């Protein structure tokens, strides 16, 4: 993988572009938004397809169930609001009308994690991956940059079934290939290595990319795999890599409980137990600050990944 930074862009803008493209490809794609059209970058879709865009006001429960009602009628609805209000606030609606009823609703969740920044913990959900992955029928996607979020949005529209699509607010390095097809459930090999496997998702993928040259200088040949689909997890890719490296670090902008690391740990415990370290938020809420400050404060930064690698290799 070429890690050249093409530009710095927010993943939510990738969603906005992907939604517009999905809408152009399929006239059945519709979108709902609960008073956050600008934040979710849904304005272009609303402008080009006004009859297919539904402003719900600040009423997320109604939005999720209206989307379910529209999905059963043959449409492909996306719902848009912050991740905090896309999950916990509407868990029962998603559980009964989307997941259990297996409706083709795409829950687009922006501003996930501490990188939402200054708004603080009320808005910085760190539990959403866990909430969503526990639901039968639900697919959980956490793309890492603008290009991948755009491609994931298009892929979600083409996939038949409930999808939780998680992305974020800040501008981050955009490095995955433009217009690379997104394969749901297929882990993305970013760099092959032999000494340790780093499984990362979302914004932490770039933080792990930045760790690679540091590790190399220390003589550590790390493998980096982007788990952009938390569920269904690419178990084969996980086990294949671990058979080679025999130790694992996971990195995510989420609680340790219920996140990517938790999913990987389950696979390892049942198939191939090995030393593992988790770079994640450990059972605390976030707080106000800039995204970069918060990533440092919650130990979700590149040095934290490097330290975790050193620690896990020492445990081998």
């Amino acid at each position, binding site marked *: 993988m070429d890690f050249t930074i093409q530009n710095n862009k927010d993943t939510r803008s990738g969603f906005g572009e992907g939604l517009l493209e999905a809408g152009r490809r399929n006239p059945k794609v519709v979108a709902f938004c609960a008073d956050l059209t600008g934040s979710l970058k849904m304005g272009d879709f609303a402008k080009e397809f006004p*009859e*297919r865009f539904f402003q719900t006001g600040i009423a997320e429960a109604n939005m*999720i169930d*209206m989307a379910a009602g*529209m999905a*059963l*009628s043959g449409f492909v609805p996306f719902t848009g609001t912050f991740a905090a209000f896309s999950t916990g606030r509407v868990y029962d*609606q998603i*559980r*009964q009308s989307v997941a259990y009823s297996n409706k083709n609703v795409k829950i687009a969740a922006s501003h996930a994690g501490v990188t939402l920044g200054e708004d603080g913990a009320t808005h910085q959900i760190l539990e959403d991956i866990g909430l969503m992955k526990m639901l039968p029928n639900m697919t959980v996607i956490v793309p890492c940059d603008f290009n991948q979020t755009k491609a994931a949005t298009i892929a979600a529209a083409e996939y038949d079934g409930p999808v939780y699509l998680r992305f974020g607010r800040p501008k981050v390095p955009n490095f995955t290939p433009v217009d690379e097809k997104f394969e749901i459930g297929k882990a993305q090999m970013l760099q092959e290595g032999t000494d340790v496997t780093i499984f990362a998702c979302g914004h932490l993928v770039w933080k792990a990319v930045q760790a690679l040259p540091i590790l190399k200088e220390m003589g550590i040949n790390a493998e980096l795999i982007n788990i952009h689909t938390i569920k269904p997890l690419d178990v084969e890719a996980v086990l294949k890599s671990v058979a080679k490296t025999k130790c694992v670090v996971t990195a995510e902008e989420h609680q340790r409980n219920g996140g990517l690391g938790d999913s990987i740990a389950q696979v390892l415990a049942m198939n191939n137990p090995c030393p593992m370290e988790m770079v994640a938020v450990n059972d605390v809420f976030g707080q106000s600050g800039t995204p970069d400050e918060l990533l440092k404060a919650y130990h979700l930064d590149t040095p934290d990944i490097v330290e975790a690698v050193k620690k896990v290799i020492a445990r081998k």
Partner: protein
Amino acid sequence: MTIQELERTASQVRRDIIRMVHGCQSGHPGGSLGATDIVTALYFDQMQIDPANFRMDGVGEDMFFLSNGHISPMFYSILAHRGYFPVSELATFRRLGTRLQGHPTTAEGLPGVRIASGSLGQGLSVAVGAAQAKRLNGDKHLVFVLMGDGEQEEGQIWEAAMYAPAKGVDNLVAIIDYNKKQIDGSTDDVMNLGDMRAKYEAFGWDVIEIDGNNMQAIVNALNLARENAHQGNPQLILAHTEMGMGVDFMMGTHKWHGSAPNDEQAANALSQLEETLGDY
């Protein structure tokens, strides 16, 4: 169907409700009996539907959603007699492996059910979504939804109640099964609902208030709602019903909300309900 035929059908549905709930010693007979007349009128007189060729998307036909999913015995009996699935399947209600789950679901593929319900307050929103889908499709058929009155205590109901008139969702007929009882007692005691008619009217709905156990009144109200549809406002039928209607000892109390009759009580109940279409 004539009023008399509808009433005879409703009598069989009520027998089925008693027998289903008695058979598995679980379920919700009171609300089921009270709402039987409304849903019988919808399925056997009012809605344009094609039970033999059930389509999940409901394109080209009227659609019905049951928001208060606990009155599933009534719903299942009506779907079966209308031809969505064999009447004999009613005997499997709430039993392991059944398509007739305690609350309606889609997971088992039961024809006639388009979404799970049971957790209250969601059906109106689902119906609004389906109604908007019909508008996008240029489909002039209507979407009907039945809600409980206790369910009106859920905040989400009012999100949808605000949305539908604001967005001109005028191909929607919502019905409240207004029996004024819920699990813990009368709605007056649990949570005074106040003036439901004024509340919905203030939100921008056209409201029709009727005796929801009078078949002629139900048919008239549904006819009026159909006439009023497509003119800008959603329609609400506030249907005053009697929980337990048709079985004397189940009326006038909330105690049969979620309790099954024993053998003696079931026999007593069935003696009050004429078998008109044949028991399953």
